[in-house]
């Protein structure tokens, strides 16, 4: 049974969309048609999914390939499922479709073009580090540009001089408190500690010997004192014995002092040895590293720290400069909003927590530093990001 046999068909040459022309052909022909369409569409779908996840092709070409494949598949659907062809009996259907496609393209291309233009015109201009005042009485807001810094940082310095033998932390490494960040060659400190230990041991042995000697002399003196009460020995011998007991006691006391000194020295040497492991004092992120493998570092206070570690999950600070006339309107606790280029569609907020009283004078214009503090609960704000700040004056 074919369509042209239907009693309603007055015009066998006109075709409705979606109608297969089966004049005289078998139904099997129609099914074969659908099967071909299904096979082609499946093939195109598989290629689309494969291409979107592959790294075999050059990245920027993937969207183009996907669009081409989608159009091809829509064509397959139109021809094999909707039975739209370019034949003369399909003129009306194709014209309606072509008009629809024209409108679709106008809507898509027009929207994307206009919105891209608007985004371009709204993009922030330049990155001057100067304060700008939005003019006009209706704009009672100050804008300024600053750099985000962590509110709390911990410098990590070497406590003993030496050669760096390993560096385990780098900028952006997450560290836990007590985690080793670098190591100084422990060799010399190990030798010093061993030497102190040996010295301490021999001093302790000496102390033991001298103590035994003192005890023996004391016992001898006691015997001689007993003999001298019976006038058995002379006073001269007794005096000599007393002297030698006193000498032995002094020697023991000296030994004890020496043992205490050597114990302290051993503790120092052990501490120094432990200090060759450079540990992070806090949980946080390493923000800077100033040390290389094999570098010789010293432990003087003026040397820059080996690492700077910023604590996580703490508020951040932004330092910005404002002019003297604006500083009148800005007080501690004034609300400020700011944006960072990394999250262009997000506004962050903070409060002014410091206004530094000493001005920097630049060509007779006084500018003040203000510090804005903001919470950073989702850790989006990273040190070093430039922030565009807007402070609304009361």
């Amino acid at each position, binding site marked *: 049974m074919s369509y042209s046999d239907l009693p309603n068909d*007055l015009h066998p040459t006109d075709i*409705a*969309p979606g109608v297969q022309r089966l004049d005289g052909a078998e139904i099997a022909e*129609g099914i074969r048609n659908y099967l071909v369409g299904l096979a082609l569409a499946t093939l195109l779908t598989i290629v689309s999914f494969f291409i979107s996840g592959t790294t075999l092709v050059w990245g920027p070409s993937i969207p183009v390939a996907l669009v081409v494949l989608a159009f091809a598949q829509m064509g397959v*659907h139109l021809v094999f499922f909707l039975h739209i062809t370019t034949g003369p009996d399909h003129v009306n259907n194709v014209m309606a479709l072509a008009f629809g496609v024209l409108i679709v393209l106008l*809507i898509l291309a027009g*929207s994307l073009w206009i919105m891209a233009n608007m985004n371009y015109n709204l993009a922030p201009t330049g990155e001057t580090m100067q304060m700008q005042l939005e003019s006009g009485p209706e704009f009672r807001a100050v804008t300024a540009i600053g750099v985000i810094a962590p509110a709390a940082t911990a410098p990590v310095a070497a406590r003993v001089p030496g050669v760096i033998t390993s560096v385990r932390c780098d900028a952006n490494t997450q560290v836990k408190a007590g985690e080793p960040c670098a190591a100084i060659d422990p060799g010399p400190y190990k030798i010093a500690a061993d030497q102190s230990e040996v010295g301490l041991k021999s001093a302790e042995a000496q102390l033991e010997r001298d103590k035994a000697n003192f005890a023996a002399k004391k016992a001898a003196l006691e015997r001689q004192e007993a003999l001298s009460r019976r006038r058995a020995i002379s006073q001269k011998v007794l005096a000599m014995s007393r002297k030698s007991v006193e000498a032995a006691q002094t020697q023991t006391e000296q030994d004890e002092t020496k043992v205490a000194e050597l114990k302290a020295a051993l503790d120092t040497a052990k501490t120094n040895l432990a200090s060759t492991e450079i540990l992070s004092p806090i949980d946080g992120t390493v923000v800077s590293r100033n040390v290389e493998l094999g570098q010789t570092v010293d432990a003087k206070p003026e040397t820059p720290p080996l690492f700077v570690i910023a604590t996580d999950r703490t508020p951040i600070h932004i330092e910005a400069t404002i002019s003297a006339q604006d500083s009148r309107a800005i007080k501690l606790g004034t609300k400020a909003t700011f944006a960072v280029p990394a999250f262009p569609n997000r506004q962050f907020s903070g409060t002014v927590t410091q206004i530094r009283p000493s001005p920097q004078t630049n060509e007779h214009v006084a500018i003040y530093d203000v510090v804005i503090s903001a919470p950073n609960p989702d850790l989006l704000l990273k040190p070093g990001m430039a922030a565009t700040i807007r402070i609304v004056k009361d």
Partner: protein
Amino acid sequence: MTTIEAAAGRDDPNRLGHDWESPYLQHTLGHAERGLASKRIITAFGFWIFLVSDIIMFSAFFATYAVLVGNTAGGPSGRELFNLPNVALETAFLLVSSFTCGLASIGARAHSGSWFYGAMAATFILGAGFLSIELREFASMAARGAGPTRSAFLSAFFTLVGCHGLHITAGLLWLLTMMAQVFAKGYRPEILRRMLCFSLFWHALDIIWVAIFTVVYLMGTAQ
């Protein structure tokens, strides 16, 4: 030459222009001038115009989505949300359902009951499967805090994909009523016309899905 054409042409008292007997004219006449088209052609063409306008409406949603796709307001992007194996399954369901819908329309034309009902039931099951995967995806996104209110990107996503899902829902209801109509009234010409419109609608939804899985899912997760 039919009586309708005769009424439209021959009996025109002013005999506007055309010699209806000329064999030359018979081949070159435009469609409109050959008189009224059949009811089936008019119905299907009208429905075709509706489908084109529906596609134009979808193109507005596509344009909205393309403009807003980057505006995630710090929320999750498509790359983090989309599950391509799910999308591949949805695509397969819809493609095969389009095929079975074609089989059902052949079955209706052949007046073959078992064929028509079987293919329609398969279409319904595949369409319902598609819909359930889509609803599960929406629910899991909402549960992860990525509902339509999270960002402009997600608003546009739910509008576009959700609108297609609503079309599928409407199509499934229509499919059931088509089966009921054929069951109650048989393969009458007007029922076959409705069946033709339904299959057009169902195939058009698959075409829109091709655009959705390409633009939204594949481009959203491409390397």
